[in-house]
């Protein structure tokens, strides 16, 4: 083979410089991970470590912006795709990671603090995995992304080693997560045995005749089960309350926003794998998930556990989009946009809400119980207003991002003419308002009965800034969403 044809072959596989551009966000963040890892040898100062982390996030954002301005499309032998949507997903993952990181400052007690670098390192690997998941056009690439995301989170969930609950959460998450990734691999193997390919591009060309083979159908079912575990929908949602509550809250925030987003980012474009006759099943699962999540949250007296159940309900709502795309026969632009917008609002809302829980948790055992928040509006008006705003956004009240997210999700359903499902979903989200409003009742409408006056301190300064950023994000997405929508094209 002469030199020129070798070049041609290289370009054919790697798409010239396009491949570098497409994977630039992943490369940038990975480079940051490596630098952070190496720097640990010389025991850098806390400031230097923070600088590296922040610079990595910044480089990641810049790289995503580059992709957004000129999306390269399919690269690397059609195994990876970089579109405007994946670039926006990248923004969301990096924002979620950044929020988790800011709120983790000063969160851990003395017993866990020697491992700060490891913590930051693990945290930074997660978005690499997420970006890989949403860009994957090949099941193996997706699997690598999934593992890159999951393994750091297993370790992070158990990061507060001095607390039994945290270790329990880590173990639970790991055992069940290992099962689910096992399902994914087994499903991929069955699919490969039946079709001889793992490329989504080829599979989508061959669909839906592929699914005529029961072997392939079994494979798809296993893959779906594994993904349903990651997005935590019925009947694979039972781990969520314990793991979310036991994990360190910054990690919970990342699980709630990032993992779910990444799995949905893959699931919607890959929905062609599912037969369209599965739509009623998916819609049923989604509605049951909403019901279980909302009813579970309704009886909680602890804010963190309540938000864990609410995260399940939100996963159910998003799954409705999948049911809609299956009915219309394939993913449409507005379905992807709906999921993206919904998750964008959710990243800011849940990120901010879990962030405030981090702040509360410095008060020790039972610090996140609702009782402690009585009369918060009188003591800490700013924090109370932020928390109330997040609750309204989670409940989907207008002028917040949560409302438009819900609007777009239900519009997918209505366009698919699933009116009954839409009305059922709408009514189930009324239950959700029952507990979101309860939080507002507690903080605004009840008097604090002599609990320690000023034990809630919004510190360090970064938490305050991050909370303000989340509020701004929630409001901007709700009132003036055009800037975000224009990114989606």
């Amino acid at each position, binding site marked *: 083979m002469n030199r020129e044809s070798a070049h041609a072959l290289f370009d054919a596989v790697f798409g010239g410089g396009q491949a570098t551009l497409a994977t630039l966000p992943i490369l940038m963040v990975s480079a940051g991970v490596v630098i952070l890892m190496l720097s640990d040898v010389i025991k850098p100062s806390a400031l230097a470590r923070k600088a590296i982390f922040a610079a990595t996030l910044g480089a990641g954002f810049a790289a995503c912006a580059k992709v957004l301005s000129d999306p390269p499309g399919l690269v690397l032998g059609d195994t990876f795709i970089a579109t405007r949507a994946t670039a926006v997903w990248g923004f969301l993952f990096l924002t979620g990671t950044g929020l988790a990181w800011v709120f983790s400052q000063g969160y851990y007690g003395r017993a866990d603090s020697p491992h700060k670098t490891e913590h930051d390192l693990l945290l930074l690997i997660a978005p690499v995995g997420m970006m890989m998941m949403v860009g994957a056009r090949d099941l193996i690439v997706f699997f690598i992304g999934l593992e890159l995301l999951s393994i750091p989170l297993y370790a992070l969930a158990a990061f507060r080693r001095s607390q039994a609950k945290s270790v329990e959460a880590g173990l639970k998450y790991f055992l069940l997560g290992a099962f689910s990734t096992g399902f994914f691999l087994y499903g991929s193997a069955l699919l490969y045995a039946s079709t001889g390919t793992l490329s989504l591009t080829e599979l989508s060309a061959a669909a839906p005749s592929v699914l005529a083979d029961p072997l392939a159908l079994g494979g798809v079912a296993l893959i779906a089960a594994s993904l349903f575990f990651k997005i935590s929908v019925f009947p694979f949602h039972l781990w969520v309350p314990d793991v979310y509550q036991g994990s360190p809250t910054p990690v919970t925030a990342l699980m709630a926003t990032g993992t779910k987003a990444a799995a949905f980012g893959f699931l919607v474009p890959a929905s062609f794998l599912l037969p369209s006759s599965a739509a009623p099943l998916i819609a049923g699962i989604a509605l049951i998930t909403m019901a279980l999540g909302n009813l579970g949250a309704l009886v909680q007296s602890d804010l963190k556990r309540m938000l864990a159940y609410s995260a399940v309900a939100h996963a159910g709502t998003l799954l409705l989009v999948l049911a809609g795309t299956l009915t219309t026969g394939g993913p449409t632009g507005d379905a992807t946009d709906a999921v993206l917008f919904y998750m964008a609002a959710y990243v800011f809302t849940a990120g901010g809400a879990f962030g405030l829980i981090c702040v509360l948790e410095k008060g020790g055992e039972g610090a996140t119980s609702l009782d402690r928040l009585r009369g918060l509006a009188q003591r800490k008006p700013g924090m109370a207003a932020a928390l109330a705003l997040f609750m309204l956004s989670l409940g989907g009240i207008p002028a917040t991002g949560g409302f438009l997210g819900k609007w777009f999700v239900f519009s997918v359903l209505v366009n698919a003419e699933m009116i009954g499902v839409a009305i059922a979903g*709408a009514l189930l989200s009324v239950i959700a308002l029952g507990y979101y409003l309860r939080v507002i009742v507690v903080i605004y409408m009840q008097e604090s009965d002599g609990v320690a006056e000023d034990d809630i301190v919004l510190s360090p300064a970064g938490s305050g800034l991050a909370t303000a950023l989340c509020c701004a994000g929630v409001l901007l997405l709700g009132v003036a969403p055009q800037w975000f929508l224009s990114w989606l094209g």
Partner: protein
Amino acid sequence: MLTLLTLLPLLGALLLTVVPRERTGLMLNLAFFTTGVVAVLGVALLTGFDAGTAAFQSTVDAAWFQLPGTDIEARFALGVDGLSILMVGLTAILMPLVLLSATSHVSHRMREFLVWMLVMETGMMGVFLATDLILFYVFWEVSLVPLYFILGIWGGDRRLYATVKFFLYTVAGSLVMLVGVLALIYGAGTTDITQLITHASTLPLATQSWIFLTFALAFSIKVPVLPFHTWLADAHTEAPTSGSVLLAGVLLKMGIYGLLRFGLQMFPAASVQWSWLFMALGAIGIVYGAFLAMAQKDLKRLVACSSVSHLGFCVLGLFALTQAGVRGSILQMVNHGLSTGLLFLLVGMIYERRHTRAIDQFGGLAASMPIFAFFLVFTVLSSVGLPGLNGFVGEYLILLGSFQASPLWATIGVTGVIFGAVYLLSATRRVLFGSITNEANREVSDLSLREVGLMVPLVLLCVWIGVRPTTFTDLTSKSIDQVCENLERAQVRLAASETTTPTQTAALAPKREL
């Protein structure tokens, strides 16, 4: 101008948040100034209104955002027409008076109270002025939040129960309506209400019908129409006086306005098809509300139940689908806002003095509070429809209009007028007249200048409407004419299709029997 009307209160609310904590006086002045400017603008809008056209006037239109995956553009579009002008005026005039009344019963957390009041004004104005369906929906739901806080923080003993019940009831309706809104917008490819009205009539009758029902559910809960009325009594009873006045004066009217704009105007055929149901519910509501009111021992609860009865008139008139009925219904919205608003103010005033609202605690107040007695008697007479005052004109038009459509329900409605006189007059007698049985009533101070001052504008309006209603009805007539023309056309078309496909119009059967 409409942008100012809508957003100025919000701006005032934002400014309020930065006023230093201890400057309560400054906060109050700021709030009065804001609502005062809005009131002046509102009056200017009323006087400058061109009654010669049915189209939206003083329109504002700005790009907002594009719905993803489509070329549908949501716009920040405002406008006013004959259907909304009176409510806009009422809201603008009522707000400063309500704030003035609040200075005596709101003593703690003044800043938050004023902020929520101003946000509420933005929400209410937005609902009446929006000419973009998405914008309307946003304002519609946003207006829930301030009242939720006002009820929950400054309400009575059972305020938490009342406020959550209020919110969940209304939001359940709104979310069902959301599905209808989405179907309508994505089906038509536009969010502009004028274009949607044109588009809606081209839809198949079944589609019109179900979308109409989702809208009607949300609005019926808000009004509230009969089976959904239970939240209202609790909310009214627990709300602070200012909250009750706004609830009765404006917020409930959003429901009637919705039925008018998105029922009669947007879905004439479906309105014809379902008019029997709403006329029945309206008429039964009139009588049922009156019976409820008769049984009340608490003065405020009595007024709340009378609201159910009076709003029954509005629904009955609206779904009579005749010119007189619709015209009376719009006028009655204003009347009810004025007279029930006054009633709540008066009840609040004696509650502040006696800290009770139980009717049997009073008696003979006319001797110790002659000015109060005058206002109460005046308001009650206006409320029961004494000719020469505002209530008479509205009720007369409604009953006339509904008699043309259905003598049965009109007759049932008429009995409501009698019952209304029974419970209101007997309550007045027990509160004001007779001998003083409870010594506490002997020492009660009469109304202050502030209290008289804030009621005088409302009283004058009551007389004005009673004596010369055409000043107000003329503003609405063009728009109503247009709505009624479309209704007639729909009626004719339905009657034509009835002869060809009898099964399709089975729902019309009960109407024919009447």
